[in-house]
């Protein structure tokens, strides 16, 4: 095998690809060839590093130097300086915040430093389209162990002992699910990987499928052996073309090398795997709906029991686990249950991937040990809130999750604590919100999402979410009444208790958790017609402070409704009757001036009564 002195690891996750990773890679290859370094430097495309906000990302191996936000134009200088002259280029390195020195090494960056990688262990270091690279990092070792040195019962026992719980949302113990399915007498049995990741802002499954598809395959073959299945399906939503493509390549490679198909590793065990592409309904992520979808039917969930482990795909016993769950299996078998269960808390073992998005400095994907405090994720890894704003709440668990307030920042992240706090683990989406976020508006946003994505089968979810969204819309419009809060609470209970599947049963969480922690905001909207975060359009008034305005005409030119009058160097005035509250003036007013202000409640209404100053003749 050919040796290179330096590897250039270009991140080719979806995020970096959209910000130009392939153009960067081409430029690098061209430059390297031009400089005659072809035999010394190899350009490798890897899976997602998780730090998507900084893409395209380049890691220089073995120097462990982390470059960010590169363009093809940066390449000649970078190659000359770093690869020829051996001088890393600080201007492309990560700078935690203004005024601080750049951090050259990846392992020193806060975002990466606090993470603990099991599922994502190969991210950014192997080419996901090359099975050799996966194998080089102990890949398929666990499979060999499970097929040749362990009985199926021992595999189930190992997974049970590890304490691994489903990473898709509900957190059902994986080992117990397998044991249940193994006990079933009917055959054939099936294995399904649920890659229908639909939560807004969540992309951990996509990242795993893109960065390390073989880890998922290896986990599934081990699972198949454990329960006695001969056929498996990887269900990936069609909006993830890269994940579908890489999984397809990986399955092909595994088959070629006898890691999948007939007589795997000469053990006599047969297992075949097939990709099914989802058509884009959120509810397909619910396991029984996903099974219906594979069967070619409309993705409607059905009542459980019977559970899929008893009667699943085509009525046969089926184990269905999430992508992240499957990706944990090989490591557990290879390194043992004791090692795995040493991580995490009493009830939640191992690590969990979260997608950290919203009002946070370091947006991206992080894998952390269970039990880590929220504070450590948000401030330790995420770097806190940008722009000196104040942290207000964190929404965890996708559209059916809940908002957790500042007081609970020391909450350990595990299944039980999150549920108790009114949120849930879900698939691991974390949306950070600062003081400019209106909690009623956020609840409305998520309810609209679940209402649109409700499959329409059961009455409470289909109609209940719609009615709740309407009440919330009424409140944000300043037309709510105190009665509405009571109605919301009753409806939330009806939907929670009455709905057929997890989607409906958890859909009221955003409302319930915001009512629990931010009730005063609801009351402000209703009683004072005031939006404390100054978000709800009906309740705010834009106003140009005369003493701050310098008359630069910027807001005037940008106003789509021509509601601003004024002249150069003279104070501008908003005609409140014509204002459509789009916020354009607020956004364009230069940061050092900040003459446009938002008022709400009494103050805002007082401004409405003032007639605009008559234009001077």
């Amino acid at each position, binding site marked *: 095998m050919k040796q290179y002195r330096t590897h250039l690891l270009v991140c080719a996750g979806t995020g970096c690809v959209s910000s130009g990773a392939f153009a960067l890679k081409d430029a690098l290859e061209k430059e390297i060839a031009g400089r005659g370094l072809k035999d010394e430097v190899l350009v490798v495309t890897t899976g997602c590093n998780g730090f998507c906000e900084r893409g395209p990302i380049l890691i220089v191996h073995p120097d462990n130097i982390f470059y960010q936000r590169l363009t093809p134009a940066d390449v000649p200088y970078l190659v000359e300086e770093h690869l020829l002259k051996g001088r890393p280029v600080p201007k492309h390195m990560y700078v935690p915040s203004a005024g601080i020195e750049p951090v050259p090494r990846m392992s020193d960056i806060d975002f990466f430093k606090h993470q603990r990688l099991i599922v994502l262990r190969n991210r950014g270091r192997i080419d996901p389209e090359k099975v050799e690279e996966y194998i080089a990092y102990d890949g398929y070792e666990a499979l060999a162990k499970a097929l040749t040195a362990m009985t199926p019962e021992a595999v189930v026992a190992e997974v049970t002992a590890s304490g691994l719980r489903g990473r898709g949302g509900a957190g059902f113990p994986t080992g117990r699910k397998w044991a249940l399915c193994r006990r079933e007498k009917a055959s054939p049995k099936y294995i399904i990987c649920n890659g229908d990741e639909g939560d807004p802002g969540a992309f951990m499954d996509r990242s795993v499928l893109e960065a390390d598809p073989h880890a998922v395959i290896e986990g599934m073959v081990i699972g198949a052996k454990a329960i006695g299945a001969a056929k498996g399906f990887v269900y990936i939503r069609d909006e993830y073309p890269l994940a579908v493509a890489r999984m397809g390549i990986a399955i092909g490679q595994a088959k070629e090398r006898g890691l999948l198909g007939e007589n795997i590793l000469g053990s006599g065990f047969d297992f075949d795997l097939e990709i099914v592409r989802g058509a884009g309904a959120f509810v397909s992520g619910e396991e029984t709906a996903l099974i219906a979808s594979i069967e070619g039917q409309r993705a409607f969930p059905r009542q459980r029991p019977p559970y899929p482990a008893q009667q699943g795909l085509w009525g046969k016993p089926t184990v269905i686990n999430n992508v992240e769950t499957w990706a944990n299996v090989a490591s557990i078998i290879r390194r043992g249950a004791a090692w795995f269960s040493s991580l995490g808390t009493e009830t939640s073992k191992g690590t969990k991937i979260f997608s950290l998005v919203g009002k946070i400095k370091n947006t991206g994907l992080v894998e952390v040990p269970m039990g880590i405090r929220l504070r450590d994720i948000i401030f330790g890894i995420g770097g806190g809130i940008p722009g000196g704003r104040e942290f207000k709440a964190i929404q965890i668990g996708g559209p059916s999750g809940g908002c957790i307030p500042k007081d609970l920042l020391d909450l350990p992240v595990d299944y039980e604590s999150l549920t108790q706090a009114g949120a849930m683990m879900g698939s691991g989406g974390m949306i950070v919100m600062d003081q400019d976020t209106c909690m009623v508006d956020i609840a409305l946003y998520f309810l609209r999402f679940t209402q649109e994505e409700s499959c*329409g089968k059961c009455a409470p979810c289909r109609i209940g979410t719609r*009615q709740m969204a309407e009440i919330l819309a009424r409140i944000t419009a300043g037309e709510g009444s105190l009665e509405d809060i009571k109605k919301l609470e009753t409806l939330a209970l009806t939907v929670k*208790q*009455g709905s*057929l599947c997890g989607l409906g049963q958890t859909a009221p969480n955003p409302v319930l958790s915001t009512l629990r922690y931010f009730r005063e905001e609801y009351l402000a909207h209703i009683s004072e017609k005031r939006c404390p975060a100054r978000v709800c359009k009906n309740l705010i008034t834009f106003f140009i402070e005369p003493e701050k305005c310098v008359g630069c005409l910027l807001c005037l030119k940008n106003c789509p409704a021509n509601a601003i009058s004024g002249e150069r160097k003279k104070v501008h005035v908003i005609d409140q009757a014509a204002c459509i509250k789009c916020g354009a003036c607020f956004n364009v007013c230069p940061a050092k001036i900040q003459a446009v202000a938002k008022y709400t409640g009494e103050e805002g209404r007082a401004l409405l009564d003032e007639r605009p100053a008559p234009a001077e003749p």
Partner: protein
Amino acid sequence: MTITIDGRSIAFEGRPTLLEVVAANGIFVPSLCDHPGLEPYAACRLCLVEVQGRKGFVPACSTAAEEGMVIRTSTPELVALRRGILELILAEHPHACLICSEKTSCDDFKSTIRKTGEVTGCVLCPANGRCQLQKVVGAMGLEVVPFPSHRRPGEVRRDDPFIDRDNSLCILCGRCVRVCREVRGASVLTFVSRGSGTVIGTAIDRRLIDSGCQFCGACVDVCPTGSLADRAVRYERLPETEKKSVCPFCGQGCSLTVGLREGRILGSAPDPEGRVNRGQACVRGRFLVKQAVHHPRRLLRPLVRENGSLRNATWEEALALAAERLAKFGPGEVAVAASSQNSCEDLYVLHKFAAEVLKAPVVVGTWSGSAAEGLRALGRAAGQAVSLNFRMSDIGFAGAILILGEDLPRAQPMVGLQVNKAVARGAALTELRIPSGKEELFLTALAALVPKASRAAAPDADGGKTFKAHLDKADTAAAARALSISKKELLEVSSRLADPKPSFFLLGPDFVSGVAGLGGLAALWNLARLVGGRVIPLDREANVRGGLVIAEAFSARLSAGPVRTGTSGQPKPRALYLAGPYPKLEPGEAEFVIVQGSYDDENSALADIVLPETTSFEAEGVLVNIEGRAQLSAQVLEPLGEAKPGWWILKSLAAKLGATGFGFDSAEDVRRELAAAAPAFGKAASPAGLGDDEFLAEEPAGAGAFIDMESVRSWDARRPPGASRDADDYKGLHLARENKSLKLVRGR
């Protein structure tokens, strides 16, 4: 086994759902999406109950009762939850009337304002009074709906035959979608869109008729609201009474519930308890009963020819005239035509009249040339008993099915449902149209190709040796060529028939009438014998099996003289008594023609005397369906006009002719005599024996022997001239030609 419900200990058997247990014990748990015969669905969430030891609430409809379960159905929490869910359901449904305080005083006027395009409340709704949502709201006593209501956009769709669809009344219980797929195997209706925009529709929003709909009406029958409505009755008032009867439109004998108001039929629907159909029907039984009975072409008064044209007459007058004229003809001079759409009572008295009064040589009935008759003839030729009785439900468990010469969805829909079931359970289905004249060649080839290992025990003693020798001579290549398929495909069909589960050979009248001699039938019989299968005759008229038994009982008594058929130099009959189909009469064809029928047609126009007969719905009578099941079809309404049952007409005419032994006072009298005359009826025709699961008695037949192909060459399988084989023909009234909607359905 026992469970405890609300503190009561309740015993149950089998594996019922909790909802079935509570319903059987008179405990009220509301439900809107569950329906007998459909898989549990758990979507309306009204039947939620508490099961001790289970998290949350569980839907009673999809939870199986288990020994020792402790259930609570009406805790305050549950009542509140159900109420909350019902309020939500009503937010999507026009509910003004449901919660109106003036509801009771409004009731008297609702029939006058029901004719409206847009339904905004119960008083304007086609389902008012038969709506299950209305019942549930009533039982739960809702007074307020605290949410804004959302009317689904879109108008009532009226662009299909028979069925109106109004999405604004739909509660998305999914019953229609499920019955269409699970029971009918049609999958025409489906859910469209998602979330609160979900509606019931068809693929790419086409009309039902363009989506493969057979208009069986099952969706209308399961709809709990007025969302799917029978257009013909949606503006009618509710029936005063409902009566059960047997559908006379085909040979399957579905039980129907007929709704009546002021002596007229309003509509009909399949009887959920019907032995044959279990709540299912087809377009004819579901939508055309009223049309057929109250048709303008009905013959309602006796007619006599005077000065060249027909005029109304009294029964007395018509019968006297008929008797006077008939008395002039000697034995063998009057030909009699009969229809197997008439009841056993009618056919018995007709035969007796022909044999004893007219001394006719033969009664030409439409059972001739039927599949059942073909098999009987085969048995006679081979000298062995052939069993014709079967149970439709057995077909649902078939391992392999071969359909020959029948269009099941159209002509035998209930058999079709069983075939769907069998296919869903994994049966191999083959449907063949064998070119006429090639039947024997083809079926023998199929038999020759049956793998040796799959052949059922074929003891040489039963003629197996001869048959095997016969198979060795089979030309499989020629058979494949005749059907224009490859020999490989032929082999595939053949190996599919050999299934360890029983295979069924469904034999339609088109196959039999195409067979020259019994060779084809015998080949089929032997093929079935070889793979251990059964041959099932499927005939299209309501009483073929009954007619056949009666005709056989009279065969000895009728062969008194030469048959005058008018063909090939034989003398023509001088007079005709037509109580069944007959070729179009030529003027002067016979000296005297009596037509006894229900509908006016080209022959009745040329008759000398027309005697109006009731339809099946106006008179009681036994009909024997294709299974051999003898069912008493009850009278549901008084005869229209002056129409009379066939047996009454004949016994009155016999009396006028001075014959004795025709003193029947009721259909029951006729049956008593029939039971004695035709032993096959035995218990089935006796008044005490007419339960709902009575079959014709048959000689024990065993598995049957192989039939020597050479012994069965001569058999005349022709249908009587003039008889229609069209499934839509009822006593000369062609439903599809008379009804625009059915014409559209058939015309696709």
